């Protein structure tokens, strides 16, 4: 039903390419690690709110600003930073590998 269905040959060649398996293994290890970091950071924050509200409500030094402010904004920044880390490694490392694999398979 897909007009762009590829020849089985290309898929077969990719399946037999050791570089493909190495790429997929490395990339999924990387993305699951980042997913894990994001889950720990966010649910750590939620658990801190659920169990230790007082920690987040503690002022920083003599300021009015509490620890909750940098921590909460930090969760947002960690999210953006992890996204950036993933994209930069994907562009730098995974894309060229993938291009090479595809080029050899689709010729």
């Amino acid at each position, binding site marked *: 039903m897909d007009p762009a269905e590829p020849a089985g040959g290309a898929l077969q060649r990719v*399946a037999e390419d050791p570089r493909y398996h190495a790429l997929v293994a490395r990339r999924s290890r990387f993305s699951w690690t980042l*997913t894990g970091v994001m889950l720990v950071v966010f649910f750590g924050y939620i658990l801190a709110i659920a169990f230790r*509200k007082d920690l987040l*409500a503690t002022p920083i030094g003599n300021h009015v*600003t509490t620890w909750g*402010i940098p921590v909460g904004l930090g*969760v947002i920044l960690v*999210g953006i930073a992890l996204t950036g880390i993933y994209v930069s490694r994907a562009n730098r490392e995974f894309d060229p590998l993938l291009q090479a694999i*595809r080029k050899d398979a689709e010729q």
Partner: protein
Amino acid sequence: MIAPFRMTRWAAVVSACCLPLPALADALTQETRQQAVNWPAILMFGAFVLCTLMITRWAAGKTRTTADFYTAGGGITGFQNGLAIAGDYMSAASFLGISAQIFADGYDGLIYSTGFLVGWPIILFLLAERLRNLGRYTFADVASFRFAQTPVRLFAALSTLAVVLFYLIAQMVGAGQLIKLLFGLPYSYAVVIVGVLMTLYVLFGGMIATTWVQIIKAVLLLGCATVMAFAVMASFGFSPDALFAKAVEVKTMLAGQAGADSASAAAKGRSIMGPGNFIKDPISAISFGMALMFGTAGLPHIMMRFFTVPDAKAARKSVLWATGWIGYFYLLTFIIGFGAIVMVATEPAFLDPLTGGLRGGSNMAALHLADAIGGNLFLGFVCAVAFATILAVVSGLTLAGASAVSHDLYASVLRKGQASSAEELRISRRTVLVLAAIAIVLGILFEKQNVAFMVSLAFALAASGNFPVLLLSVLWKGCTTRGVVWGGSLGLALALVLTVLSPTVWVTVLGNAEPVFPYSSPTLFSMPLAFFTIWIVSLLDRSGRAAVDRSGYPAQRIRSETGIGAAGASAH
């Protein structure tokens, strides 16, 4: 344009402590009173409409095939798509609702913002590129890739329609309330205007027009919020601590005026700097966090956006842009909320002498702040942007709903993939008309109802049905047709039932004394149920179809990882 900081007639101020707490998405759903007709706002909104209708006309000329209609032919760039995704996500509920939440309770608003943001990295790491590589128009393309088409597409289409409908009702009711408030027009006018304009965009301009409406609105909203946050920070010499200190002082003073003794007034003032009553018990906290995080990854109108870009690389880039813009936007709303405490809560002109609350309802915090900062003209501009926001979001939702009907139900289930592009397009356009009519009727019917739970319900449904189905069908070899249909359906059903039995519906809407299900979100229970059911049913599935499903995995896996065979951008 920055008005001098006004701080007058303290005595006349009535406590902000008696303001009702805006709950999630309550933003849009409170009872509001009609205001005087606001001409600057109407004129500026008129200019926005004119501009978007011209874009729609241009887009209509380019919308010939189903690919153009559903996904703008895959010709949107990563940057544009990132802005459009941010536009889809920065609804009027986030702008007005979160700033109102911060205005009322301070810190608690930030918890929403983090929850809404953290779904994006998860989408990027696990789904975005694979979605682009496997699908063409709808998320059902991906979910049903190697499975029996009819049952999986039926499930996906029904779940899409459920999510879209709840989301749509909340937006329509919100639109009505907001316009009554902002423009001084009657509720039903507003609902009809939104319905008709949205129909024009989607019907003629399809995804191309919807995307550009989304982009323009995102730029306008980000611009407005930037100006407001900048003005607030400027009046405190760009010192966040000075802003917080003043906000605590204002809250303490208001609590004192409301009759609190000085110790409890000081405690009340300080309470805005830490988490408050928003999260009551750990179960609700985790459950709600899961709904926000994983629900984002299962919203059909969001997933559809990944098919509008040419390839997986652009899909990846769009998430980075979207996450950056959305994060920036939440930072701005945080400043705006605190700015409103200082500049709005102490200004009698913004308070309702009868109720002591904000004039026009508690969601007006950001709008009154716009007035305080830039006067009536800037207020009109921000109002017009808020309306444009609703319009853009409902367009995206309607397009997602229409594609589920025409692409999944009609072309795949009913016609078994034999329908021509022209036939499918015709059905899609008819569905847009039907959905718009339903949205208008429901929007008017639900005027007096409390629909605050509907957006949370949409997120819970997406997290409990679509997300488990997508994740396992893409990543688990052993997954079968029977598994995803059973697991997805049970997850949806449990999320729906538990929401009805929860405090927000069982007590607040239906008026019972005690909730049957005590927690505020069902996701902690319904999402694992979906995963578990998919796993156990697939494992025990010995049917002939299951063998076909499993044997289809290797080819699907290679395509999802490499993009070989994926549909590219259509030529224009």
